[in-house]
């Protein structure tokens, strides 16, 4: 089986980013799964845009954090799934048709 790299990457980005966005938004509203978000932010430095380190507790103040963290998820998913599909096709033989 060969991967269609573009389709695989886009679908993976959608599948991962959407739940992450919901999770970050939920966390911003009522600190749901705050430990998971803290863990996420320890390896994804966001500086002043930190979702868990925001001084103000208002939701509006946390919107940049939600966007920043969601962008992290989108970019990372894109990179990893693209590389994965590329490597998989490369190792499994001719990848011209799959593209």
């Amino acid at each position: 089986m060969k991967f269609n790299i573009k389709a695989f990457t886009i679908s993976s980005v959608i599948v991962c980013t959407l739940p992450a966005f919901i999770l970050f938004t939920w966390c911003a509203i009522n600190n749901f799964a705050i430990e998971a978000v803290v863990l996420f932010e320890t390896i994804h430095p966001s500086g002043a845009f930190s979702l868990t380190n925001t001084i103000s507790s208002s939701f509006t103040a946390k919107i940049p954090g939600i966007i920043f963290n969601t962008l992290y998820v989108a970019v990372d998913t894109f990179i990893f799934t693209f590389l994965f599909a590329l490597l998989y096709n490369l190792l499994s033989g001719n990848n011209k048709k799959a593209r």
Partner: protein
Amino acid sequence: MRRKLKNVRPIRIGLRLQISLIMIFSIALISFILSVAIFKKSEQTVIKEITHFSGAILKGIKRETKLYLYYDREVRNFKKSGESRPYLNDCKTNRDEAIQKVMQFFPDIISRDTMLDVAFLINIIETDNTSESKRNRFLYFDRNHARVDDAKNSYDEELIQLLDFFLETIETGVNFKQITTQNKKIDQDDSVVVGLPVFSGDFTEELYNKYKDFYKSLTRSLPANRETSSLQEQHSYFEQEFIKRLVYNYTDFDYKINAANDKDYNRLFVYFSAVRYTGRLTNNQREIAQKEFTEQLKSLKSDLSFQNYSETCDQFRKKYNLRLKPNIHNWTGLYRFLERNSISVSSPVPIQELALQAYKSDLNGIIGIRLLSKEFFVNLNRNRNEVTNLALAIFLRFIIIALLFPGFIIRKINKLADGAYEIGRGNFDYKFKMRGSDEVGRLSDIFNIMGKNLKKAREEMIEKNRMSTELKTAHEIQSVLLPSVLPDINKLQFSSYYASQSEAGGDYYDVIPLAPEKLALVIADVSGHGVGSGLVMTITRTLIHSFSSETVKPSTLMEKLNEHLYLNTASNFFVSMFYAVYDTKSHSLNFSSAGHNPALIVRKNSVKELPAGGVALGAVGRESFERFSSGKNTILEKNDLLVLYTDGIVEAMNNNNEEYGEERFYNVLKKNHDKDAETVKDAVIKDLKSFTSGHEQSDDITMLLMRIT
């Protein structure tokens, strides 16, 4: 890996690598610049915080310090001042109270904020107005023993040196210096030192604070249109104030006198003659002295300074034997006089230098505070780490994206290259199937159109080549049908010219021997030109050769030809023809014309047209043709030149759309009436080509000449 193509260079540093490198370098540069900017901004924030914090403390201490310094000086100068002993005791009490307040102030600060580690030092430059002398005295506040001590007892030599340095730069406001301890054996933490100048007069302090704001405006490069005039006014104000302070503090400096007109120079003479010096001058002497004095000052122009003015005064004093008035200080008096008379004074020295000198003259000292930098910079370090991590996290992701991203573009370009190579190999049916409305999609459409057009062009080229080959063959066949060599008959000269407009022409000429003393001369022009006309010409030629004989009259031949051509050729083809039978013995010429140009006889500088007329062959049926057809006869003379031609000669056009015409043609014939046939032909063709001058030939050109010698 791209496959290798013949005669196509291999890719070494491809677009993918170039774009990736550009993206990586760009993001690295942006990350670096942003990080440095954020670091610097954080540093500035911390420095501002420290300065603000220290400034607040120092200002609190300053009032008591000034009191302490004042009473301490009074105590030390007690013997000189001659004041009473109770006053001395009061001074001592006040001094001790001031130091007690300072002592109380420090524990308050330390207890209020435990992170503060304070050392306090005062650097006093004592000014004695009477003796105009200055001396430096360093005092150190020993907070452990709650007393002010001489700085030589201080353990902090570095602090004293720094405060000394601050004295040189007081014009920039509160000073800040970060110190990294070099001697690690002492195990001393890094620290920062903040210094604040202390002035003896309130006015100087106010001026100093104003000047600080002005200095910030200068260095902040504010928009010119809004602030420039204001800044210039402020600059002028501060310059005047600083000069005033320097003059009244008896500081010798480079002061310029800006005398604007004769009135100002006269006033300067008044100061010399009436205010500064005493002595009697007669009216006459005074008049002469005033003239000389002002002229000498004027000659100095912009170099007129306090120094020059004093030298001039001294020179004139000696000359006129005047005496200096007592109790008038040299430059202070002059400045007062100039101020009263609204003559401005300036200085070429930069405003910063003026400010420094002005402040120093009124400066009591510098209060310095040394703080542990660790507490202030711990947040800064934390911020630095966060910024570094953030920049690295973004930068690493960008590197990967920069490496992957160009692949999307390059793949499309490679597809285009492959397709273009296929088309180049001749596969014009290759179709580019690029999607999207970007530049590559547009380029693929253009390639598709190009392939389609190339295919069409190739097909047209093949067809054209085929036609060309066929026409060439027709031309070769036709050229055989025309006489390659004209007959060599005694006392007759022949010459001919034939130039078809295309490969296959419609003109025809021939000289056919019929009997030993008779020969037929024929010239014909088939309507139109090209392959069709060439074929009709071939038929006509065959028929002429079949029917012509010494017994057949030209008119009869014409009728026969007409009948055959009328029946056997298409209705749009017809042939104009002149046919003649010449008897070489009797010189008689029997001829008939079928709608052709009249034959010409050139005789002794005149051109005679033979009767023409008739209807073109193949145009009408027998009965109609016979009505117009007729045979005619004429006798040629010796040296006559018979000229047969087609309309291609007289209807030849030049670039101005003018026809060559019969007149020009006849003139050339007349001009060459005595020449041989070949020469006449050459003359006509030369004149014709000269007339058309390269204009495209529009019809076949044929000419047959016969001269009787």
